[in-house]
């Protein structure tokens, strides 16, 4: 008997252990789930990558507020956006709980992909230009895995009741009319953006005063350089020199986009061959190819001179460092300046707390009288106001109307203001107050922009990255060296890379055709005003993304291969015939004022 029992145990022991562990795991998970979301509670999970200081606290605080709001509206007969009574919809759910999944940025793309494809995504997710998800893939994700936000955009936000926005359609309560939640390719609103962002220079006020005697950072370019020079000449108590500007490869892009590119704007008037107001990569390439510009062109030369002048005050080897390395240097009071966006403002403030005061300044501008840059500086860098941190509601959400109500709460006047006070970011909603630290972040709505986009992809892009890196790290590598190494290569190989890029254009046309068929089907079955609105969207998309694109594409190809249609006349110059017309009109008194 004993041996039979022993034999049975020996035979089934392994399976028994597996089953026991499995049973234990099931019970534990059920117990945890039950603890996390009791049967009378709607559980909403929200996934995001914002690990900056204040963000998780902000979401937790607003989640706690919403729990009360939900309970009140559930008890008080509150209704959802469709006019249905919440309590009737969810008679056994008087409570709501919001739980965060805060995932590091470095793995966020993979996490999003696996959660969405695996069907285990949280109820709400932040997506948008992060984690290495290609744009085309991101659009597919929005389309396939997220609910549309369109049902809410033209109705007032119920959480704005009692405020000046009580009767304003939801999308018009956003500073950017909700552009940050709209996907042009889908012609659809898919997300609820909660904040706005801008980039400026932060500085250690106390250290600046100590090292330079200045109370405020100079916003004039030469004075800024002089302050950096002074800082570089000082040593800390350990005998090591101070770094004027904490930087990294990540930060260099901000300097380039917000400051160095400003001086290239005058090139626009020489190379904007289609006169659309922008210098596309095709136009820059054509201009180089026909000799209209080169790296000898003074505004381009000025950009590289400015890179050299400013980056000499970055710490050594900055191109090999990452974002955190630079922040660390600043937080340790070994550097005076750092450029970054509003997303880091709260974190920097917290790191400085009790140690030093953080100041914010705009990017320094040369004076119009500056002998080197004055002729090319026409204004500050243009900043397009737009909302970010877009959260969408996934199709895996069991309570999408409740999740949408929570998002409406976060995007209400009061909710958004409070949320962004925690975040230290700029609210996305109008008529909201922002943190005093952010006073210097109002966007420059009138300004200049870059006119030196040499990115044609492929080999030329790799070559450009190589020469630019060398220029950044090697003080003996001059702009003449860069020109010698890059310009012939660019002119020679650029056409091939451009043609390769154009294949993507044809693929894009196919994708738009797919979308148009879906839009047309919707217009065909809709009735009344909806049908009219759908047809307008259909025709507008057809015109802008298919018909005209085909024509423009051909014009672009001719320009790149044979030169601009305007010949030797610059796009913003008057031909002799037009000058005659102008004279004639003036004689006739048609001056047009």
């Amino acid at each position: 008997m004993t041996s039979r029992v022993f034999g049975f145990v020996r035979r089934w022991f392994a399976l028994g252990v597996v089953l026991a562990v499995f049973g234990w795991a099931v019970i534990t998970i059920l117990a945890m789930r039950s603890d996390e979301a009791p049967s009378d509670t709607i559980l909403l999970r929200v996934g995001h990558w914002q690990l900056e200081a204040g963000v998780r606290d902000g979401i937790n605080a607003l989640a706690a507020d919403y729990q009360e709001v939900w309970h009140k509206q559930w008890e008080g007969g509150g209704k959802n956006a469709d006019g249905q009574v919440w309590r009737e919809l969810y008679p056994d759910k008087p409570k709501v709980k919001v739980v965060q999944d805060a995932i590091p940025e470095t793995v966020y793309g993979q996490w999003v992909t696996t959660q969405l494809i695996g069907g285990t995504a949280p109820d709400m997710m932040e997506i948008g230009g992060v984690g290495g998800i290609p744009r085309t893939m991101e659009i597919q994700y929005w389309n396939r895995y997220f609910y549309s936000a369109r049902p809410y955009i033209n109705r007032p936000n119920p959480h704005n009741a009692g405020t000046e926005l009580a009767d304003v359609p939801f999308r018009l309560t956003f500073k950017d009319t909700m552009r940050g939640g709209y996907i042009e390719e889908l012609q659809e609103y898919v997300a609820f953006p909660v904040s706005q962002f801008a980039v400026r220079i932060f500085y250690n006020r106390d250290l600046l005063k100590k090292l330079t005697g200045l109370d405020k950072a100079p916003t004039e370019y030469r004075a800024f350089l002089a302050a950096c020079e002074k800082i570089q000449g000082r040593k800390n108590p350990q005998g090591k020199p101070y770094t004027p500007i904490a930087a990294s490869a990540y930060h260099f892009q901000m300097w380039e986009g917000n400051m160095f590119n400003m001086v290239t704007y005058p090139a626009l008037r020489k190379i904007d061959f289609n006169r659309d107001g922008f210098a596309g990569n095709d136009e820059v390439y054509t201009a180089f190819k026909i000799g209209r510009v080169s790296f000898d062109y003074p505004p381009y030369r000025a950009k590289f001179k400015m890179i050299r002048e400013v980056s000499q005050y970055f710490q050594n080897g900055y191109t090999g460092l990452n974002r955190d390395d630079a922040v660390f240097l600043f937080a340790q009071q070994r550097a005076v300046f750092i450029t970054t966006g509003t997303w880091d403002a709260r974190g920097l403030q917290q790191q400085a707390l009790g140690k030093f005061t953080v100041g914010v300044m705009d990017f320094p501008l040369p004076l119009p009288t500056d002998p080197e840059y004055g002729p090319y500086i026409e204004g500050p860098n243009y900043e397009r106001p737009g909302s970010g941190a877009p959260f969408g509601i996934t199709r895996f959400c069991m309570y999408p109307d409740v999740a949408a109500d929570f998002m409406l709460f976060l995007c209400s006047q009061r909710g958004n203001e409070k949320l962004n006070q925690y975040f230290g970011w700029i609210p996305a909603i109008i008529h909201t107050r922002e943190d005093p630290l952010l006073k210097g972040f109002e966007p420059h709505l009138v300004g200049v922009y870059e006119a030196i986009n040499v990115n044609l992809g492929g080999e030329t892009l790799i070559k450009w990255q190589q020469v630019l890196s060398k220029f950044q790290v090697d003080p003996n590598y001059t702009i003449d060296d860069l020109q010698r190494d890059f310009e012939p290569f660019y002119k020679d190989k650029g056409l091939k890379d451009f043609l390769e890029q154009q294949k993507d254009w044809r693929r894009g046309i196919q994708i738009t055709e797919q979308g148009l068929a879906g839009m047309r089907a919707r217009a065909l079955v809709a009735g009344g005003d909806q049908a009219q609105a759908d047809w307008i969207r259909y025709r507008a998309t057809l015109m802008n993304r298919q018909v005209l694109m085909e024509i423009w594409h051909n014009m672009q190809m001719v320009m790149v291969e044979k030169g601009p249609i305007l010949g030797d006349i610059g796009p913003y110059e008057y031909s002799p015939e037009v000058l005659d017309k102008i004279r004639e009109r003036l004689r006739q008194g048609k001056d047009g004022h």
Partner: protein
Amino acid sequence: MAAVCLALAAGCGPQAAGDPAEAIKAGWNSYRMGEFNQAVKAFESAQAATKPGDPLYAQALYALATTWNLRRPGEDEALARRLYEKVLQEAPKSDEAAWSLLALARMQQLVQADQEPDYPAVRQAYQEVIDRFPEHLAAHEAFVHQQATWLTTLRPEDAQSVVDAIDKFVAAHPKSPFLNAVYSVQSCAYGILKQGEKHLQAELRALEHRELDPTNPNMDNAAVYWGIASIAEFECGDFATARKFYRRLIGEYPAEQRVYGARVALKRMDDLEAKTRKEVGLPAATPAAAPATGGGQ
């Protein structure tokens, strides 16, 4: 196990849906979400639940053809073509027949990324839509595509033929919902012909018929105003029109990227006019006649 297999088997292949109209609607929803397998199933079930002659039958066939045509990945162009042709056979007078014929023409134009379309054949295919369904929206759209193909050559003689064809089209269809599109195409044609005044007039007519989707935050008239102003300034020397549209850009879209450029343009025209007045011996513009341009450099 057998029951499970039966249940799974029952879920495969076309089924007769309860309501084919609902199945078609659901199919299009799936299509828009990129769930093409589900869309195919829904359309097939709608097709199985209807018979030739029923309008829903043509709708289901057309939807199925469109899905096989445009789904990525997994497209089957040969099957799509057969299905479109079936729509033309089974319901030759239906809306779906017109859209199917247009789709067949579009298939000829939308070739692979490394190929060039056979434009004469493409134009002929669009002409077939125009001839068979002259008053249908699909024919108006076909006309726009057809004329645009002529402009791809950038030859003046082709551009002139587009101008003439559009004049005829507008005379025959003065209320076509595609007027913005046809005038925009005509504007491009005049651009190729380097006829500045007519280029400007076509742009102004296109603007007159421009439809804006009020719910699209990216869609506005800023680029159109900029385009009209720069044609007026540099092709016509018509500073009155140029000023009007640069100012509309600044006034209506103060946060637009080209506002600075518009201010510079206003100053540029003021400066040129002042210089030209001197040259031709005209008195300087009076302050009342030369209001502030809203900035400059």
